[in-house]
């Protein structure tokens, strides 16, 4: 369990993380989502005691990172795969890490085996590909068999095989009851990996919700309706308070309805003797949801600009 409360980090006049509060629960993969420069890495560094918060605090199982006795046994982190000396072998790298938290030497071989680096264990880490470096970093994170795991952009630059491996690893770790926080700016990846989301933009919390809720709420849950009498149906639904537009898609002519449920549409059609050929709720993609909600919070927006204004009707509502 990770609990951040009123976490703030300022660098001079720049506010990197602004009064951020969220909770990461055990037993599920929580995606930490935000555009580049939103403050994800800074937040993770504050969780791990590397950066000193300007205000607020973050607790791991009720304690600050610095108060943990053998921290690697409680928290495993992969912040940067390149945090290994290029001229030191993978085995030596893990050996000093293990020694620092009084973990048995046999554990080094176990994690090397787990990440599939046993055959190159005595090669220097500097000669590793990005995928291998990533595996070495993960071996380091898993060394102390920790209950809490943090991964910062773990799939960046990996090939599809590596991405799949990391995704399954994270879900496996969560299934074992561990707390897994994984940051990414890749929304599609988070849609596949994470069941909960903490979404930030410009250092502020935008949403904390399950992935499904986030998408539903953000996409406005439109419903696709096809009917031979769509003109009549459109009038009836609008009278009931729905908003109706023609589906801009390539398929056969259809209506996109928002503001009423699928049940209400079906009932209305039946009551008026109108046949329906299709009635399907459409889930928006995570990308759409993300762009809609964080659109104003991109730090380095391209093009010239609309002034800074927050989304008026934040559909999920920042929880704190």
């Amino acid at each position: 369990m990770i609990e951040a409360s009123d976490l703030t980090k300022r660098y001079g006049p720049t506010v990197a993380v602004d009064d951020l509060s969220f909770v990461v629960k055990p037993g599920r993969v929580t995606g930490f989502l935000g555009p580049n420069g939103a403050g994800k890495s800074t937040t993770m560094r504050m969780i791990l005691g590397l950066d000193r918060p300007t205000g607020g605090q973050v607790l791991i199982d009720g304690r600050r990172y610095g108060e943990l006795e053998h921290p690697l046994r409680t928290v495993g982190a992969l912040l940067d795969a390149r945090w290994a000396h290029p001229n030191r072998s993978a085995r030596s790298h893990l050996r000093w890490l293990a020694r620092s938290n009084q973990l048995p030497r046999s554990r080094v071989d176990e994690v090397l085996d787990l990440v599939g680096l046993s055959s190159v264990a005595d090669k220097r880490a500097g000669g590793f590909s990005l995928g291998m470096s990533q595996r070495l970093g993960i071996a380091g994170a898993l060394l102390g068999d920790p209950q809490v795991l943090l991964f910062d952009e773990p799939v960046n630059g990996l090939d599809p095989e590596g991405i799949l491996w990391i995704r399954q690893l994270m879900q496996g770790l969560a299934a074992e009851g561990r707390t897994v926080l994984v940051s990414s700016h890749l929304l599609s990846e988070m849609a596949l990996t994470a069941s909960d989301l903490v979404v930030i933009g410009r250092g502020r919390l935008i949403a904390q919700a399950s992935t499904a809720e986030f998408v539903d709420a953000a996409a406005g849950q439109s419903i696709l309706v096809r009917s031979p009498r769509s003109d009549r149906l459109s009038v009836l639904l609008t009278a009931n308070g729905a908003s109706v537009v023609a589906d801009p898609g390539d398929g056969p002519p259809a209506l996109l309805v928002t503001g009423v449920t699928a049940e209400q549409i079906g009932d209305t059609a039946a009551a008026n003797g109108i046949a329906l050929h299709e009635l399907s709720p459409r889930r928006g993609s995570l990308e759409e949801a993300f762009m809609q909600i964080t659109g104003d919070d991109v730090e380095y927006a391209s093009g010239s600009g609309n002034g800074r204004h927050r989304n008026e009707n934040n559909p999920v509502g920042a929880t704190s």
Partner: protein
Amino acid sequence: MSTLAVERIKLTSTRSPWWCTGLALTAVVGIAALYAGLADGDVPMDVSSTQIGNALGMMIMMVMAALAVTTEYRFGTIRATFLAVPSRTRALVAKTTVVAVVTGLVGLAAAFLSWGTGALIRPSVDLGLRTAADWRMVAGAGLTYLFAAIFALGIGILVRQSAAAVSILLVWPLLLEQLVQLIPNVGRDIQDWLPFTAANRFLTMTESVPEIPYGPWGALAYFAAVSLAVLVVGLLVAQRRDA
């Protein structure tokens, strides 16, 4: 104890500390051999002439010591270290202890090896260690190397960059401390309080001199105090700033 073991593993599992140590030993002993081989009747030879390469060896080991911490910043392993040992002071003191003790032992080895080399090449010259000053000149190198390593680590922790740390460590003793004595009137007085001048005097002073405000052991104590002060400032800064 485990933090000391960690730093020992780190220091011995890359090649550059071995190279630096080999280079330092070769340089010090090589210079002693060269001097002993070339010295003839016109150039007097004594214990001090076997030790003339010591300052160079100390420089090389100071570079090694500074790199032991700056490469950690360069490659991000310092963050991995602070994740494993959140007390930064504890982690950095362990590193300083291991590197300083190794450097001290290298200094001791370099000094005795070059003394032995001198005696071997010029068996006719009496190089016996008889006085306290003779012993201090040879065995004392272990102590000056040790505190020089602490000084170098302190600088390394403060500046975090290899190039900057090495520049400071070379310019300070070789240039700065030599130029100060050229300042009219006060230059000589300031010189007494320059750390590497004091370290050199610890090794080379034969007896207390009235113009110098400290004896040989006072000189070492002063050098040690400056080195430890630099380290403490480094530790305090490392504790406060973001890793």
